[in-house]
């Protein structure tokens, strides 16, 4: 069964962010946190990021966030019921993901980690695909170019180099500057900033002025390790050591995430090179469903961050400004319920690949070792009489 994803709903958002001139990130560099919507749902202005989104778009962002949170909740309970092996929750990071992903053009390329379910949603990846991975039915398996969304990457930081190389390809295709210009964006965590690969990608992006945006979701934790184990200064400042701008945005503010990403991507597309965005947010759940955060962090910290919930503030804003009423919220809730049960159903009806699928897609052309092993294993499986449970 296939579950619809959010890909189709993005178009409307493409052209509203204003393109203020100047280096992206300058305001962040000055130490501030770019914020356009307070935790209380009040709209604030930021000189570097004027933004005037129509109500429909803001409702769209709310809907996206609510729906991906529902996918997340559903996945967690599926894991508890033994339907998934593990799940990495995005709880608390909806604004960072939806805001940034909705700021992308359709032809921009995305390189995610393993937690970017919100971004995947915006790129039209069927949530069932994500469940397949966490159920152990596949390692991902979607077609990156089709969705302009790379494969989930589990080895921390590797994908930052892929994104940078991809961006160098964009340059070589002459797709920087002008109409139809493209850029790449890569997601990674606060912990990832310590990896050699990530810093090498900063060197490359800077030296080649590659059209790539580094989107770091600083959710304050790398499993049990707090940010202080990775850096003694704010992460967005890392970029300046490599010669390109970095800025910090309120990662729980979907409007601000949208605006800063829009601007940074535009700068990249125009040939202004890379930007580092630190989305200051919080991992409200466990690292994964196998983790127990009570071993290493205080409940009070979570309580504090609950007050900054990324979805609540948009709801408050929509209500206060009259841009959405109870009907709208009821509709979205209903949609979420539907989505939830479809996701659950998709998971429950998922079938395992046949044993011999182990040997598929190792090489493009036939390989003698794989062929011989496959043949031997097939014969071995055939040697079991029916009922012994080993059949293909």
């Amino acid at each position, binding site marked *: 069964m296939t579950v619809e994803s959010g890909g189709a709903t993005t178009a409307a958002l493409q052209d509203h962010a204003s393109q203020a001139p100047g280096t992206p990130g300058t305001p962040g560099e000055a130490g501030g946190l770019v914020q356009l919507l307070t935790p209380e749902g009040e709209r604030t202005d930021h000189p570097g990021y004027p933004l005037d989104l129509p109500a429909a778009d803001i409702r769209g962002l709310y809907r996206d966030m609510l729906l991906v949170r529902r996918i997340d909740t559903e996945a967690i309970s599926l894991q508890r019921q033994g339907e998934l*092996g*593990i799940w990495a929750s995005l709880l608390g990071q909806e604004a960072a993901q939806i805001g940034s992903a909705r700021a992308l053009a359709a032809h921009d390329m995305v390189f995610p980690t*393993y937690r970017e379910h919100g971004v995947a949603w915006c790129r039209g990846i069927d949530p069932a695909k994500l469940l*397949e*991975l*966490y*159920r*152990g*039915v*596949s*390692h991902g398996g979607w077609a990156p170019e089709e969705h302009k969304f790379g494969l989930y990457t*589990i*080895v*921390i930081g590797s994908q930052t180099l892929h994104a940078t190389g991809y961006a160098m390809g964009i340059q070589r295709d002459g797709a920087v500057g002008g109409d139809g210009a493209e850029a790449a964006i890569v997601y990674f965590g606060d*912990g*990832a900033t*310590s*990896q*050699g*690969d990530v810093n090498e990608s900063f060197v490359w992006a800077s030296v080649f002025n590659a059209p790539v945006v580094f989107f770091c979701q600083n959710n304050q934790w*790398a*499993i*049990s*390790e707090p940010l202080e*184990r*990775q850096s003694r200064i704010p992460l967005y400042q890392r970029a300046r050591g490599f010669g390109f701008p970095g800025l910090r945005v309120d990662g729980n503010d979907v409007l601000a995430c949208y605006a800063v990403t829009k601007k940074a991507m535009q700068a990249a597309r125009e040939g202004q090179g890379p930007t580092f965005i630190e989305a200051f947010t919080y991992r409200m759940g466990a690292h994964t469903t*196998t*983790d127990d955060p009570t*071993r*290493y962090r205080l409940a009070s910290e979570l309580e504090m961050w609950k007050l900054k919930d990324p979805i609540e503030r948009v709801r408050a804003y929509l209500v206060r400004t009259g841009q959405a009423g109870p009907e709208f919220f009821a509709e979205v809730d209903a949609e979420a319920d539907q989505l939830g049960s479809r996701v659950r159903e998709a998971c429950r009806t998922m079938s*395992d*690949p046949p*044993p011999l*699928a*182990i*040997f598929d897609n*190792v090489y493009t052309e036939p*390989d003698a*070792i*794989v062929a011989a*092993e*496959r043949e031997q*294993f097939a014969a*071995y499986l055939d*040697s*079991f009489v029916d009922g012994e449970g*080993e059949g293909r």
Partner: protein
Amino acid sequence: MTTLTLSRALNEGLRKALENDPKVLIMGEDVGKLGGVFRVTDGLMKDFGENRVIDTPLAESGIVGTAIGLALRGYRPVCEIQFDGFVYPAVDQIVSQLAKMRYRSLGNVALPVVIRIPCGGGIGAVEHHSESPEVLFTHTAGLRVVACADAADAFTMIQQSVSCDDPVIFFEPKRRYWDKGEVDTAAGVADALPLDRARVALEGADVTLLCYGPLVRTCLESAIAAREDGRSVEVVDLRSLSPLDTEVITASVRKTGRCVVAHEAPVYAGLGAEIAARVTEQCFYCLEAPVLRVGGFHTPYPPSRLEEHYLPDLDRILDAVDRTFGY
């Protein structure tokens, strides 16, 4: 004797090592407050402090590289690599620095660094969490490579590794972390079987089954099952992968005349190849059949819903045993 899980036995062994030598350090990702994702270092930071149990930044090359520096300063760091698939970023520091520095220094430097790696599959994990990269390290001179298979060995072997003056790559069979065994935590390691020796885990007469780490239990189960077919299988737990204890191995094969090697790592260019080649060379006239190998396939580790097919299990091991009787 106490009944401990393998994971707990490691924890007790590390605790002993920390108590016995103030130079011993624990370092890695999440080894501190969390106690490691498998809880192997549980409670050690609390008891020995942050100076001796170090939660490091998230970078494996950094972990091994700084451990080398600490060893040069006289410390004995025990590094945890969180999962097998994450040792690759540290390969350069391991292969070109850790393994070679003693040689480079003409013996003026010793690097007593232990690198603990939870390895192998069978826990339903996502990609990169079920790898068996041992052959890479066995091919690298200057490293000792060992794998424990049960709680008792876990307890002693980790202590022996920490007190070894050479770098040790220490493989832990992650799907056996929760297996329980009897451990004599009061016993010292002085009288224990040396770190570089294999152990006959089960005596038998007809065929030798060589294995290590997670597959020792599987092989023992296979041997018991084989009895039903009237076959007497000798199971040897190699324990040390570099060096190999060829004495124990060849003695067994000379006795049985048949040999099967099993590991989770892909067969192609895996450690089983070395064992097969060596056994064949040294027992050429005694072999009734070629040494057969059972292991992972020449594919990446598959999604976990397929791992039961990928991992050598009782049936596949017995199938290979049977085949050695076909010659």
